[in-house]
């Protein structure tokens, strides 16, 4: 009576579930290989404008080079007297969360044999600026609450879609990063 997690050949969400399952088995047998390090470097451009570069990462026991680099720019909007060259860092965090959950929805749907036609996540975070501006010590800097809404078009019941989204949260790295504390060490030099 559990939902059958079949790998259905007619369903194609562009996710290679067989490869993911193989990877899971391989990494379970060799947990050292499961130790990854993700990296970015960020350079100040001007004002609140900065540019991060993402290239290699460590995983499967060695340095992994992608042979290409990605850049992510960040800035602040004009109401902060900035130039608004790019999204704010907090909007990038929201995008990260939405992307992670969306990718999860596709992977879980593939695994459960659900063909997706469209998936759209809308995300919003509440922030009381009295925190970052140092007006009120009791207000935190970060988001008070974050809300995500999924609009999914697929051949599946409402409960199946809710289960998809719930399972995606359960397995999401960014959801965990946002909902749980993490030790952060910042050094200079």
């Amino acid at each position, binding site marked *: *009576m*559990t939902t059958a997690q079949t790998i259905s050949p007619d369903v194609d969400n562009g996710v290679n579930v067989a490869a993911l399952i193989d990877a899971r088995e391989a990494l379970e047998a060799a*947990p050292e290989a499961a130790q990854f390090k993700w990296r970015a470097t960020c350079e100040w451009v001007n004002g609140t404008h900065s540019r991060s570069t993402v290239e290699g990462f460590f995983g499967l026991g060695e340095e992994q080079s992608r042979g290409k680099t990605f850049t992510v720019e960040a800035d602040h909007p004009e109401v902060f007297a900035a130039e608004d060259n790019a999204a704010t860092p907090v909007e990038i965090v929201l995008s990260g969360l939405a992307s992670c959950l969306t990718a999860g929805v596709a992977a879980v749907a593939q695994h459960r044999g659900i063909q997706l036609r469209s998936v759209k996540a809308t995300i919003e975070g509440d922030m009381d600026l009295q925190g970052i501006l140092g007006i009120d010590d009791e207000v935190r800097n970060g988001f008070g609450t974050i809300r995500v809404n999924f609009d999914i078009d697929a051949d599946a019941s409402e409960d199946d879609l809710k289960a998809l989204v*719930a399972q995606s949260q359960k397995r999401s790295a960014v959801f*965990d990063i946002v*909902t*749980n*504390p993490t030790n952060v060490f910042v050094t200079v030099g």
Partner: protein
Amino acid sequence: MRTATTVIIGAGQSGLAFSKELADRSIDHVLIERGEVANSWRKERWDSLQLLTPNWQSRLPGYAYRGIDPDGYMTMPAVTRFLQDYAAHIGAPVETGTTVSSVTASESGYRIVTNRGEWRCATLVLANGACNVAVVPKVAEGLPPAVTSLTPMQYRNPDQLEDGGVMVVGASATGIQLAQEIQAAGRQVTLSVGEHVRVPRLYRGRDIKWWMDATGVMDMHYTEVDDVKRARRVPSLQLVGSLERATLDLNTLSRNGVEVVGRLAGLRDGRAQFSGSLKNLCALADLKMNRLLDGIDEWVSKAGRESEFEPAHRFAPTRVDSDPPLGKDLTDGSVKTVIWATGYRPDYSWLHVPVLDRKGRIRHDGGVALDAPGLYVMGLPFLRRRKSSFLDGAGDDARDLADHLSAGLRRAAA
């Protein structure tokens, strides 16, 4: 030094059921038990505990509950008596007061060292229980020294607790039962909720355990389930055995004044940090409960038995505060005790046979230990079936594994 063809470590239901199966096959054996029969039920449970499985479901090979209240739930003295009577009924050869301190492989089997001498055997059954040790998560290290830390194995009743608030970590069977009892005793309880499995006590007029038995959920075999590793980690159902046959879920607990918070994610500078994932964990549990109920309804309608049961219905979703607290100060004196209802594990510290994986779990295939001929394990979650860790599951597993064991002996003799 004494010898037996088979030594069984532990005289709970697992060891006793195995003993009965061996006796039926005329295989000479002994049960080594550090306490008395049913030691775990006598010594390691809190005072008010009643089984969460109904009386009729206490079934062992050649034995079953025969009292006047098949739908009731046994107290600890009642389970103890039940198992004691069973041991007498089958004439189980139990060596009580005998603690195993070491097991090693020998040329012809296994060597068992106890406080009362040594045993040698060709085949060995580990029936020492899946719940020997309460698991306390690593975050507990951050608990301020003024707060008392207790495990469910140390907890007996609310009177034992220092006056003041109590934080119960974990909301499976143990956690919700302790939260309920301690809140009812007039203490403010904070319940930290991680992954959990919500079920109603009664559905369509029958015990949920009756449904899970009738529809075959409990008999599901470990080779049939999608992801057996995951199935073996599923936490216990949110259930309590009581006279009222009442459902105990997070909605009931919050109605009774328990403060429901997210999974304990950290303890830092005297502050407990709760995960923001509470809403999702509750949604997952509600969806999973509804899938179970859907399966039951389907089974009823396929069997054409609608008229026998009350109509199908669904339960109110778990209510979660729109803004559940993300932290709690543990230094302001409001919380005096933390109880770790975060699960149990077996103790194999005395087992010096290379059968453990890197997390200290026995490597086995349905109870047959891997790379250790003649070694068996009983009573672990989903060992062979979903019911393996329950009173009702010992019988079928013992029969299967005794078949395997005796076939091995015949091969060795041939």
